[in-house]
Every structure is written in C-alpha cells, then in structure tokens.
C-alpha cells in the first residue's frame, strides 16, 4: 500500500467515524438522561470511558484504543470495499462472531457498523447469505450480553445500539420490507430485530410503524407463516399493541381476531402451551380500553370462540401451571369486556351493558359457575378469578341478576340454588382470597337490587337448635337463610368466629340500604345457645355479643389478627344495619349493657383505630336515628353518657383518627386490574390455598379482608354518617328536650280546679323543672370539663361544643377550607419539586451538551491540525520528489482534494448536528422558561466553566 492510499483511508475513515461518534455521544446523553429521570444515577465514569474508547479510536489517542475497534473497522472495510464475494461473506461471519462475543465488539459495531449493514440489506437483497449474515449480526448487536460480569450500572452497548437503530424510521421500513423475503432465516432474524427494538423503544417503534404504509399488514401476515415465525410474530404484536389504540384498531382491521382464535384452537385451547397464553395476551391488549374493538369482536365473530376456551375438556381434572395461566388470561378477557373500554370513552357504558347482556345470553355464567364453584379441584387462583368475574357480570344488570338468582347447580336430586353453593364457599373455604371473591358476588348481587335482597332475607328463618348441630354436609337441603343463620352462630361453641364473621359480611350486603330487610331481620330471634341459659334473644343482640366475644378471644386465638377483622366485619354489619333504621337502634339499645359496652369500645386503646372509629359511628347512629322517647334509651341519654364517659372532643377525635388511618386513605374507587403478561402470569397462577398474606399489591399490614370490606361505598357511608352525627349531636345540645312544657296557659288555674290540686300541680311542675335544671347543670359541667381538658387552645373540636350551631357550621367550613388549602399547598409543593428536578435535569443536559460541543470542536481542531500536518508533509514530499515521480504528485493532489471535500462534508454534518444541538438547547430553554426558570442565569453557569449544576440547584432551594 503506498502512502497516498494510506493517507486517503486514514482521513476518510476517521471522518466517517467522527460523525458516528456524534451519534453515539447523543445516544449516551439520552441514556444518561433516561437513567437520571428514572432515579438510577448512572455512573458517569462508564459513559466517559465508553465515549473515550471511541474517541481514542478516532484520534489515535494511544492508551484507550480497543483492539475490537480496529478489528471491527477492518471487517467493515472488507465488507464494504471487498471485491471477492467469499471474502466479504467470511468478513460478515467474523463480524457477527465478534459482535456476539463482547460488549466492546457491540460498542465498536454501534459506532461504525450500521451504515454498512443497512447498505447490505438495501443493495444486496439477492445475496441471501449476505443478508442473513447482516441480520444475524444485527441480532447480535442488539442482544444484551448478560453473562459478562461487569459493574452494575455499566452501560449496555446492546441497548445503545437498539436506540441508535430505532431512531431511523427508514431502517424500520427497510426491516419491515424484509419480512416479505422468501428465506425463512431472513424473516426470522428480522422479527427478532424488530422485537428487540420494540422492547427497548416501544413508543418510537409504534410511531414509526404507524407511518409506514402496510407496515402492520406485513406483521400480521407473519401470523400465517411457519410456526416458529408465527410465534415470534405473536410476541412482537403483543409488544406493539401495548397501549397503542390506533395500532390495536389496525391490527383488528387486519383480521387479528380470526387469526388469534384459529391459533388458539389449533394449539388446543386452554390445554395449549405458552403460544395460547401469548395469543390471549395479544387479545387482551386489543380489547383493553378499546370499546371499538370490543364492539367489533361482539358484532362480527361473537363471543362463542372466547367462551369455548373456558370450557374444560378432556383432562378437566388436571391443571398444569400453563393451563392455569391460560384460564386466568381468558378470565381477564371477560373482565375487560365487562369493563367495556377505557374510562374516558363516552360509549363505554352502553358497550359494557351490551357486552354483559350478550355474555349472559351466551351462557357464560354456566361456565363460570362450573369453574368457580363446581371445580373444587381447580387451582384457587382460577376459582377466585371466575368468582370475581361472576360478581362483575351481574353487578347492576337487572337481567343478569335474575339469571344468577334462578341458577341451580348439581344434579337431581341434589340440586341447589347457585347462590347457596356460593354461600357455602364463603362459610367453608380455607382461602381468604376465595372468601373475598365469593363475597364480591353477594356484594354485587345486593347492589341496587332490593328485590334480590328481599328474596334472600325472606329465607332467614331460624331453625330449631337441633338443626344447628346437624353435620355440615347436610346443608345441601337447607335454605339460603338457614345456612346463613347457621353460619352466623356456628362458631360460638368452638370459639372460632371466622364463619360468623364471613356470614356477617354477607348479611351486611343483604341489609344495605334496604329498610324492609333491616326491619325484618331485627325481628329474628334465636334460641339461646344452650337451653339452660334462658330465653331467646334477637339476632342483633347475638351479633353484639359476638362483637364482645371477638375481643375477648383475641389472645387465646392462635391466628393473630383474626380478632381485629372479625370485630370490624361485625361492626360493619351493625353500622349498615342501624343506618336509617330506628327499629334497629331501638332493638340495639333495648339491652342496657350494649350502650356501656360500646362506650368502652370507643375508648379502648387496645383495639385498632378503625374499630374505635366504627364503634363511634355506631354510637352516633344511636343518636342520629333514635326515635325513642323512653328515658334511658332516647337520644339525650346516649349523648349524655357519651359526653360523660368519653367527652365530646375525644369522641369526635375517633372519627378523624379513622379517616386518617391508611386503610381509609387507601380506598380506591375501582379496583384496577394489572394486565397479565408473561412476566406477571406465573406469580398469579401460584396463589396457593394457604395464602393469608400474599396479594402482591397489598401492603403487609393490610389484611386483604379489610381492604375488600372497606370499599368505596362503605367509606362514603361513613363519611356521610359522620357529618350527620356531628350536626345531630350539636342539635341535641342546642335544643335540650323539655320535660316540662312551658306553656303559660298550663300555669293558670283551670276552671273547676281546686286550690289544693292547683298547688299540687304547680309543685309537680316545679319539681320537674328542678330536675331538669339539675340535669342541665350536670351536662353543662361535663361540657365545661371537656372544654377544660382541651385546654381552650382554640382547638377545632372545642369550637364544636362551645359555639352555637351557626358558628359550628362556620367552623366546619373553615376547617374544610383549611384542609383544601393545605391539600393545594401539598399539590403545589409536589409540582414544585417536579419542576425543580426537571430543571436540574435540563441543566445537566445543557452542561453535557456544552461540554460535548467543546470536545467536538476540539476534535475538529485536531482534525484540522492533522490536515495541516498532512498538507505540510505533502508539501515536503512535493518539494522532495516531484521530479522523480509525477504520478505520486498527482495522487497526492487528488488525495488532498478529496480529503478536503470529505472534511467539508463532515464539517457540514457537524454543523447540522451543532444546529440540532443548538435548537435542542433553545427548546429546552423555552421549556425552562415555561417552568419559570431564569434561563440566562442557568446558562451563565454553563457557558464559562460548565457550571456545577448541583450547586446551582442548592442555591435555588
């Protein structure tokens, strides 16, 4: 090789590298920014060293050139400039190997290789072997190398490469066009590359594919390809359709539903392998939050194919993990249909209703009952999902409510209503999850369904005691009500109130918002547990007794924590029951000790905040809905004992404490389902029968029963009650009852009344007044005491008691305002921190760009220097041997010209990039301005010494 060619290739080669370097550098920033935003502080050293490696290569910096860089460069040169086809092919093979082997190889490839490889893919379509090799090299360049142990936060060249490649929408359309090639490997590798791109930069790929005409069509065609390709395409499509509504619609337009279901059938339905799972994941992506696609499925294919996946065929008794996952996935599909689309879609409700109607028409309920109720050998996760699905399917849908209440299960003569079977699950299951799922059915069934509630309540007829001791198995012949009553009272003898608590939960659904049922159930009387213990007692009293019993069982109970929720569930029942129901309040107060017990419970510090709070609510209901005029049971008595035993201040405090407790705070209006993906599916399927505390998305201290019990409805009931109770109690104070009617006419002597009688009457009157004054004094004293206890510090609770109703209202408003204001403050604070972090991110970004511009301009200087040297050398050579070798002279001139031309082109490139950087900076500045930052001040720091963003940030605080 003569000097001139060497020169030429040196100058030419390094300039190309320079522009690649720029791209890599930009990518590095993106990565750095990403990791910064994600809160994972990436080690800057790694970035810098990776960067330096490439810099070293370009500028001959002696100590940081990696051998891979020059090796890869040589191979690329052979591929692009080689003449012999064989040599080029073997270079490609070698390149693939080096890229597959090491991160350094991947890095070097990323810096230089893409144009060459894309060139091969574009220009050499006919050379299948080259195309294959090129694609395989790309696959290797994009596949993260995990086996090489490196520092934790080291950058993954594979990810950088993915990022780099996905930036060019042209490369994506080139890749898509390769899917129409005949060669199997070409299509296979291409799909792998697309999947890699999609995993790493989903949004960019989604956007790019949307703009490529027929892009999605090509991918869809792959579903009809050979099995290996088809499976790869399935995976790709699941990534592609995640949260991309327009793509979801196009995929469906291209006939995705037909294809998905035909693959599922081909693969054996729920018995099939992971391909079925992938199909269902794709299906769920297409239906999730997409009412339009749901309508299309319903109106064209119908739900039959979907429903048939639920049917257990063949080996119905065996459940592999894969089958479990498949069933869970298809149950999720039903869930999505029942939800009807995205929250924001105005057509959602109509679609939801139609879906629910059609699903029931198609007998989905039967299959769900088979799976959730009758297949006790099925994994508990599947049973629970089926039960939840039943609940959702009937909720607030009159026809579907009828459907479930008229369903019977079993075979003659052992048939029974489905609702009975579900109740049995509630009473007997050992799985808390299953109880919650089955309980959800009754919750849904009773919601806005007073006929249904009445129907269930009508069967609540106490059985003779003997029945209660009948063996459990005989309950097949029992009515719903008998089963429920038995459940309510079953555990007393063996000291286990678990069944009672579950039955209580069901009963509270039956009573909710239904006056008729409440009053009916108040009248239910139970025989004494042991005849020797005396008379029958109302069911309501029994429940109060169990409430007390639950707390006393607390410590001897093996399962710690049970007592807590047993009490809460019973309290919820009572609170629901007494709401709006004077008869129930009357019944409750019928037994004097009840009030005493409740007063104790409210101030009992050994029970949870929620227990105290609910007890306080119950107490409040005894005032609010008290229509009694018997002294000793009337509202005044309750308020009096309340203020004497607890004190109004600390009474109201119980409400606040409960509201603040995180159980209440964490109540969400609707449960959100996590999409079932390959990675989450396995853990879902593994929910075992003994799973007291592993609902993954629940906090440890939060018992799953509690969060299902304290649903949004109940919490809003509590909030409403609280407001009413506050008002009512104050009212009781502000309008003390008068035992004496102070009507002047009555003080007059009546005609025909003797003096003696008149005096007697007046005396009695005065006595009454005296006693009332006495009472008022007493009450006044309590209030004063209470006031004294709060220390008159102007506390809000103190206001409640001392001021009149109007002032109280005012105080309440003020309190609300204060709350709102502090909420707003919190929001603003959060926003502020967000803005701050954003601005510091932009600062960092700006600083990095600045420093990069500097190194680029340095690089350019070096380049120019090199050029200068070369020129000098050329001159020297010229003067030395011009006469000897005119050819060399000419070649040199040419080389110089070319070098100059190329450097000009590269300079232009650089300028364009600089321009882009500049406009980025401008955009960022604008954004910073928007965010209220002083851009000039920021840039001041950046301009002269690259600033120390961290310091700036601290100053801002």
């Amino acid at each position, binding site marked *: 090789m003569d000097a001139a060619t060497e020169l030429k290739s040196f100058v030419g080669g390094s300039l190309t590298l320079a522009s690649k370097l720029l791209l890599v550098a930009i990518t590095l920033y993106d990565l750095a920014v990403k990791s910064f935003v994600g809160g994972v502080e990436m080690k800057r050293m790694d970035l810098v060293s990776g960067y330096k490696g490439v810099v070293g290569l370009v500028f001959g910096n002696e100590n940081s050139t990696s051998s891979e860089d020059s090796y890869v460069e040589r191979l690329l040169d052979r591929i692009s400039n080689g003449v012999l086809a064989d040599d080029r092919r073997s270079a490609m093979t070698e390149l693939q190997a080096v890229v597959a082997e090491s991160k350094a190889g991947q890095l070097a490839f990323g810096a230089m290789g893409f144009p060459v490889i894309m060139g091969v893919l574009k220009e050499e379509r006919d050379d299948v072997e080259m195309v294959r090799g090129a694609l395989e090299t790309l696959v290797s360049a994009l596949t993260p190398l995990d086996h090489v142990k490196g520092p934790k936060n080291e950058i993954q060249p594979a990810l950088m490469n993915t990022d780099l490649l996905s930036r060019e929408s042209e490369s994506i359309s080139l890749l898509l066009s390769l899917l129409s090639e005949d060669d199997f490997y070409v299509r296979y590798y291409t799909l792998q590359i697309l999947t890699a791109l999609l995993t790493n930069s989903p949004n960019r790929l989604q956007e790019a594919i949307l703009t490529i005409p027929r892009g999605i*069509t090509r991918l869809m065609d792959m579903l009809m390809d050979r099995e290996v390709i088809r499976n790869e395409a399935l995976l790709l499509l699941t990534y592609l359709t995640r949260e991309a509504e327009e793509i979801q619609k196009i995929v469906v337009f291209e006939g995705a539903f037909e294809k998905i279901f035909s693959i599922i059938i081909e693969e054996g339905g729920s018995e099939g392998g992971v391909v079925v799972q992938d199909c269902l994941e794709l299906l769920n992506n297409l239906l999730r939050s997409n009412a*339009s696609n749901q309508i299309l499925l319903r109106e064209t294919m119908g739900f039959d194919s979907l429903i048939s996946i639920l049917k257990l065929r063949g080996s119905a008794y065996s459940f592999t993990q894969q089958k479990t996952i498949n069933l869970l996935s298809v149950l999720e599909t039903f869930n999505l249909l029942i939800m009807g689309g995205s929250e924001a879609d105005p057509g959602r409700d109509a679609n939801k209703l139609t879906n629910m109607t059609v699903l029931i028409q198609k007998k989905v309920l039967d299959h769900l009952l088979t799976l959730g109720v009758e297949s006790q050998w099925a994994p508990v996760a599947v049973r629970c999902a089926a039960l939840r699905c039943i609940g959702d399917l009937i909720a607030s849908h009159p026809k579907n409510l009828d459907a479930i209440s008229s369903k019977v299960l079993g075979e003659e003569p052992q048939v029974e209503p489905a609702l009975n079977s579900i109740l049995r699950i509630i009473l007997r299951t050992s799985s808390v999850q299953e109880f919650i799922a089955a309980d959800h059915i009754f919750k849904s069934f009773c919601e806005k369904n007073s006929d249904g509630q009445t129907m269930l309540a009508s069967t609540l007829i106490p059985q003779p005691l003997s029945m209660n001791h009948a063996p459990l198995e005989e309950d097949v012949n029992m009515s719903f009500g008998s089963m429920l009553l038995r459940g309510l009272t079953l555990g007393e003898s063996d000291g286990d109130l678990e069944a009672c608590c579950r039955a209580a939960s069901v009963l509270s659904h039956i009573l909710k918002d239904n006056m008729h049922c409440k009053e009916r159930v108040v009248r239910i009387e139970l025989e004494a547990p042991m005849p020797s213990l005396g008379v029958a007692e109302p069911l309501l009293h029994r429940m109060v007794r169990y409430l007390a019993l639950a707390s006393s069982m607390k410590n001897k109970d093996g399962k710690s924590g049970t007592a807590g929720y047993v009490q809460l569930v019973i309290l919820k029942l009572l609170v629901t029951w007494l709401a709006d129901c004077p008869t129930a309040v009357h019944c409750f107060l019928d037994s004097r000790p009840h009030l005493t017990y409740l007063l104790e419970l409210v101030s009992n510090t050994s029970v949870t905040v929620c227990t105290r709070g609910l007890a306080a609510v119950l107490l409040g209901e005894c005032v609010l809905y008290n229509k009694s005029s018997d002294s000793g049971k009337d509202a005044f008595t309750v308020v009096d004992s309340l203020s004497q035993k607890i004190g109004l201040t600390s009474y109201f405090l119980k409400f606040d404490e409960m509201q603040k407790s995180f159980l209440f705070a964490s109540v969400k209006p609707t449960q959100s389902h996590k999409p079932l993906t390959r990675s989450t599916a396995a853990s879902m399927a593994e929910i075992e029968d003994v799973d007291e505390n592993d609902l993954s998305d629940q906090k440890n201290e939060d018992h799953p029963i509690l969060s299902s019990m304290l649903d949004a409805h109940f919490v809003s009931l509590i909030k409403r009650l609280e407001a009413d109770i506050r008002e009512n109690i104050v009212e009781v104070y502000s309008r003390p009852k008068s035992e004496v009617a102070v009507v002047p006419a009555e003080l007059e002597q009546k005609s025909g009344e003797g003096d003696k009688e008149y005096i007697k009457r007046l005396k009695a009157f005065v006595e009454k007044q005296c006693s009332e004054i006495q009472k008022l004094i007493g009450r006044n004293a309590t209030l004063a005491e209470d006031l004294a206890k709060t220390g008159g510090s102007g506390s809000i609770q103190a206001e409640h008691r001392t001021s009149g109703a109007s002032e109280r209202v005012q105080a309440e408003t003020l309190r609300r305002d204060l709350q709102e204001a502090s909420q707003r403050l919190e929001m603003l604070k959060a926003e502020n921190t967000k803005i701050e972090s954003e601005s510091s991110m932009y600062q960092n970004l700006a600083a990095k760009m600045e420093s990069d511009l500097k190194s680029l301009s340095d690089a350019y200087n070096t380049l120019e220097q090199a050029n200068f040297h070369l020129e000098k050398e050329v001159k020297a050579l010229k003067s030395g041997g011009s006469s000897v070798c005119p050819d060399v002279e000419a070649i040199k001139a040419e080389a110089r010209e070319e070098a100059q031309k190329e450097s000009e082109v590269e300079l232009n490139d650089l300028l364009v990039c600089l321009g882009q950087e500049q406009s980025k900076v401008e955009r960022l500045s604008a954004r910073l301005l928007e965010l209220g930052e002083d851009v000039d001040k920021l840039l001041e720091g950046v301009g002269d010494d690259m600033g120390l963003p961290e310091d700036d940030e601290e100053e801002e605080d």
Partner: protein
Amino acid sequence: MSYAYLFKYIIIGDTGVGKSCLLLQFTDKRFQPVHDLTIGVEFGARMITIDNKPIKLQIWDTAGQESFRSITRSYYRGAAGALLVYDITRRETFNHLASWLEDARQHANANMTIMLIGNKCDLAHRRAVSTEEGEQFAKEHGLIFMEASAKTAQNVEEAFIKTAATIYKKIQDGVFDVSNESYGIKVGYGGIPGPSGGRDGASSQAGGCCS
C-alpha cells in the same frame, strides 16, 4: 351471526362532511347534530341482505383531518368498498375529491368499489355543488354516485346497499379471489338466509336491489 359474506368498508372524505353521521344513521338510525371530530378511526357493523343472502358489513369511519392521514391509510388496502363523501354545501370538499381518489388508488387494492356520496342534500338552499357536477365527476372516475342526507336518512341505506350489491356482483362475476382476505371480503359459514336474532336481524329488511 351467520353470514354469507363479510365486506369491509371504509368511509373517507374531508373533515365535517358527515362521514360519522352517515355511519350512525346506517347502524343506529340516529342523527348527531354536533360535530364530534373523529379521532383515528371508529367502527360500526350491520347486517344487510342482498340476493337473499345475509351480508355483514364492517365499516371503518376514518378521521377526515389531515393529521390522521397516515393512520387512516392503513385501512385502505384491506377494504372491499369505500364511501367517498363530500359536502354539497362546501365546494372545497368537492375540490379535494381528486386527492382522496389518488390516495385510494395508491393504497387500496385496484378492485375496491368506490361510492361517491354528495352528503347534506337536505340543505338544498345552501347547495354549492350541483348534482350534475357530482355525476360528472363520478362518471369520469368510474365511481357510483348518489346524493344523500345523513340527517333525513335519504339514500343512506341505499348508498351502503348499492355498494354492497356492486361488490356482490363482482364476486359473482369472478373478479375476486374470495379466499384472499386482503380484498376485504370474507366468505362466511352460514349462507342460508334465516331469522338471525338480535338487532342485526331487525335491520336487514332492505336489499335485493341487485340484479
């Protein structure tokens, strides 16, 4: 839900010409007086009867706004029929027809049946494009033509059905390879006309207008 054939339609044309209204009138027999800009595409379906055969129409109503063009183009190739709509009261929507056609010719399959609809013919007093001009344009470009009103439902059924009848005729004449679904035609399982339940059945009274 059985059908002899399934046809995929797209509805295209400038924003505001009444594409969504035509679809709504056809599927739900309702009119929507306010303009709900379509975002991307929306879907509708209905069963009709042609030559005593139940035919399912799957209809994609696209957004007319320029910014959605790249998305809506994805729907051209797989469609058997297109309703190209303009607004007789807005001349510019008529002037744009050529560019819509060009788009269709470029992205759709060559056998796509195109029905030109001059919509809002109830607004005769504000007419800006004469019937003859519409006819003329259709003739020049080999389209079927109708004036219609999504508001009064005039010619709405007819437009959808006439398009289907034309496609059906093409199938009979062997123009399509119906096993290739990329033409937007699918052969169903149930070719037998029968009392199909639900609202599909209720709305399949029309038809039989093809030879």
